């Protein structure tokens, strides 16, 4: 291995794997805000006055076993369950959603205490909900000490919950999601359509996910469940969708929870929804302060699901101050479940419009992108489901995160799809 490759082996996984939870680290309870310069779980954990010693450290070669690894890993200090997706109701209205749980261990489990609950931890969670018309868009964040009945993460079978938000293993090997917020109740059955993509698979070969051997890799293990079909019910309380502008309120990020506008009609509406989702999982030591970039670099991320059963995870690295040569890279998970990496020269990924200015802080975000992977004959346009999304709420350095739709071609075929886009480093004082 050349030293340069060793360097990449050290660097690239850090970005790419961190990118799998990029944005996740921003989901901290409002009470901690505002903190300039970005908040990260390392800082948060430090405030808990716990001792990181005694927790297991990540080493290469984790033997992934499912569904075991869906469940909690309390030997490791931090852990993330991050589920994103989009569903459509019978009227064709599309909703973006994201439910994230983070466990931060307060003390390593002792040998004498045998528990299936990853107790002695703090649980954090965030639920974002974004109808494409922006009406009734919501976001909420919660925190609680792990305790039976209140919040926790089970080792097996998977069950992670915080109050009435939960993600658990279903009877059929799938997952069950429940999340409520005021008048909104979402219940989804999630069925895996592809095998999980593990860190070992994404690190094979050359380039993007360069080998992370020798203890120089990321400080956490991760896997991606790239495609889950979603069916369920959306329960909408009266008035929930009667107010316009909820998303804009939400994105200012000043309220812990954006409450629904006053009810203007009675009754409850049940809507059947179907769609697609994906789950990102990580556990290990908390990487500090690089969710959206590090040093001179900022990182954008695209997690995309195409209707031809292909998924793409693309990362776009660029200089915060502008200039230089942006470096896009993609991992494609193909129809047969195999994965393939595309490096800079095989990827075209660039904004196609001047951008959208967030009124709250004047930041200019390029929300429309063009992505081309010539080797796959693929050309896509990526557009936001709506510009002002509640998923965009962050702390510290502003970011944009939200549901996107895809349209384009693969060879002679029309392809469409959906996904999530995370844009970082576009704070008002930085250049595009």
């Amino acid at each position: 291995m050349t030293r340069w490759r060793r360097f990449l082996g050290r660097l690239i996984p850090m970005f790419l794997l961190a990118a799998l939870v990029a944005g996740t680290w921003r989901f901290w309870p409002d009470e901690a805000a505002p903190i300039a310069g970005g908040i990260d779980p390392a800082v948060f954990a430090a405030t808990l006055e716990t001792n990181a010693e005694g927790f297991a450290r990540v080493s290469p070669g984790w033997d992934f076993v499912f569904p075991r690894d869906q469940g909690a890993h309390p030997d490791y200090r931090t852990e993330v369950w991050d589920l994103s997706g989009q569903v459509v109701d019978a009227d064709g209205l599309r909703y973006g959603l994201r439910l994230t749980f983070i466990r931060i261990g307060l003390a390593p489990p002792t040998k004498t205490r045998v528990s299936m609950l990853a107790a002695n931890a703090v649980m954090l969670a965030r639920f974002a909900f974004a109808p494409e018309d922006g009406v009734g868009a919501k976001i909420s964040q919660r925190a609680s000490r792990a305790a039976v009945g209140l919040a926790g993460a089970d080792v097996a079978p998977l069950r992670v919950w915080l109050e009435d938000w939960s993600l658990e293993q279903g009877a059929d090997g799938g997952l069950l999601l429940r999340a409520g917020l005021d008048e909104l109740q979402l219940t989804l059955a999630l069925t895996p359509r592809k095998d999980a993509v593990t860190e070992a698979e994404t690190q094979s070969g050359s380039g993007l996910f360069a080998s992370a051997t020798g203890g120089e890799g990321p400080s956490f293990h991760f896997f991606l469940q790239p495609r889950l079909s979603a069916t369920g019910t959306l329960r909408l309380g009266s008035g929930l969708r009667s107010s316009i502008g909820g998303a804009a309120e939400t994105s200012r990020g000043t309220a812990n929870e954006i409450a629904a506008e006053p009810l203007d009609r009675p009754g409850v509406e049940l809507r059947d929804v179907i769609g697609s989702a994906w789950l990102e999982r990580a556990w290990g030591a908390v990487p500090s302060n690089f969710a959206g970039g590090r040093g001179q670099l900022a990182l954008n991320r695209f997690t995309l699901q195409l209707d031809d059963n292909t998924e793409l995870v693309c990362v776009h690295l660029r200089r915060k101050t502008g200039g230089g040569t942006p470096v896009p890279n993609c991992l494609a998970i193909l129809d047969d479940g195999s994965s393939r990496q595309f490096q800079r020269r095989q990827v075209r990924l660039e904004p196609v419009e001047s951008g959208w200015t967030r009124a709250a802080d004047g930041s200019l975000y390029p929300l429309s992108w063009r992505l081309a992977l010539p080797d796959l004959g693929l050309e896509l346009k990526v557009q936001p489901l709506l510009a002002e999304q509640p998923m965009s709420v962050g702390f510290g350095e502003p970011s944009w995160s939200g549901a996107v739709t895809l349209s384009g071609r693969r060879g002679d075929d029309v392809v469409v799809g959906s996904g999530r886009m995370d844009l970082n480093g576009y704070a008002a004082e930085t250049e595009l």
Partner: protein
Amino acid sequence: MRTDHRLTIVAVLTMLVLSGCDGNGPAEATKAEPGVIPATAQRPGDPAAGYHALINRAVVTCGLPYRAYAASTGNPAPEFDLPGRVGRNADLPYAVTAFTADSGVELVTSNCLGCHAAPLNGELVIGLGNEFLDLTGDPVMAVEAAGAFVESDAEAVEWQRWADRISAVAPWAMTDTVGANPAVALTAALMAHRDPKTLAWSDEPLMEPPPVDMMPVSVPPWWNVGKKHAMFYNGEGRGDHVRYMILASTTCTDSVAEAREIDAWFKDVRAYLATLRAPAYPYPIDPKLAATGAELFKSECKKCHGSYGDNARYPNKLVALDKVGTDPVLAEKSYYDGERFVRWFNASFYGDGQSSQPALGYVAPPLDGVWATAPYLHNGSVPTLAALLNTESRPRHWRFDGDDPAYNQTELGWTYLRLSQGREQFASLDEQKWVYDTTRPGFDNQGHDFGDVLSDDERGALLEYLKTL
């Protein structure tokens, strides 16, 4: 280990001495004819000072801030003892050099040894070309990603300068085959970004850059510097060799004053290089067989390659393409398509008083230490000396036997595998990059068929003699 061969970027930046520039002036682009290359007096220098400078001074004067280097690489310890390295350099791998920029930021940059030194039997041999360099990685990704470890504003300025330069010439810095060195096109690409008069850098090319088609070259050994009257395979580097050598600095040398400063100390480096001698063959030699081979050498090889031993003589012959018959692409491109680079060179500080003369031929090199310099021919297309002496035995597609192959004492070269097909048989780029495909333009392995007239026994005797050089 042979393949643990330094940073890609290091090599990219340090192989520039293999220039493809040609000509002697805009109006009088001198070209040479095959034949004997006349000697040119070289400026004297202090070999001891030259060695010290070679291993401690930065010829490439931009780089990655040291703190970012240390954080991103884990600051690996030197793998070989390089006597005389001082200060920070004593703790760095041999292929990189630390220095402090005018801004006060300590930088780490590449040096000449990335290409011109290589491990041999567990020891680093200065002057042995590194034929295992892997330049197939994307330098843009590497240098841009390094920005993740750059923190202060002053460091950011230095990093951006370095990254911008490398990104500008990245298409010419990459190869697709391990061991293939793209120095010729890279040097020309750098010229395209500089004003020849002021040497000021332009992010946009000031003239048409060279084609990105690969013209692979093998890295020639330094220990022949003292014998050769001209630099480069086509013998075009005539005149003061130092001026050609310091083209290695054109990635970052932004003024004539800076070039002049480098030129002043590099004459000592050249003087040191002229003192280098080839390593001795480390395995048994059959003296009787070698003596038989010596007689064959006199009759078959001496005329072009010279004589060795007590009455050594090297004729400095440039052999016409139609006579040597080896891949003509390198010589022809310089001769026919290099006019704008001729003009650039001759108009620049580097060409001041120089007479660069491309020719339609290749220099028959000195054969000192030839056993150690596999693979052979200017493009590294023939894996062993045995194959060089027998055109029928040359593999059409081949690769080294692993990334740290054993030395083959029968065939004289690094053990290789003969492949039935080219790159297409391998799915991954990691496999493909090891395949040397002699059917590609510039990669051809034919020519130099002078050994075909010999019997197997005669070739065996000749090989035995070559071990003694």
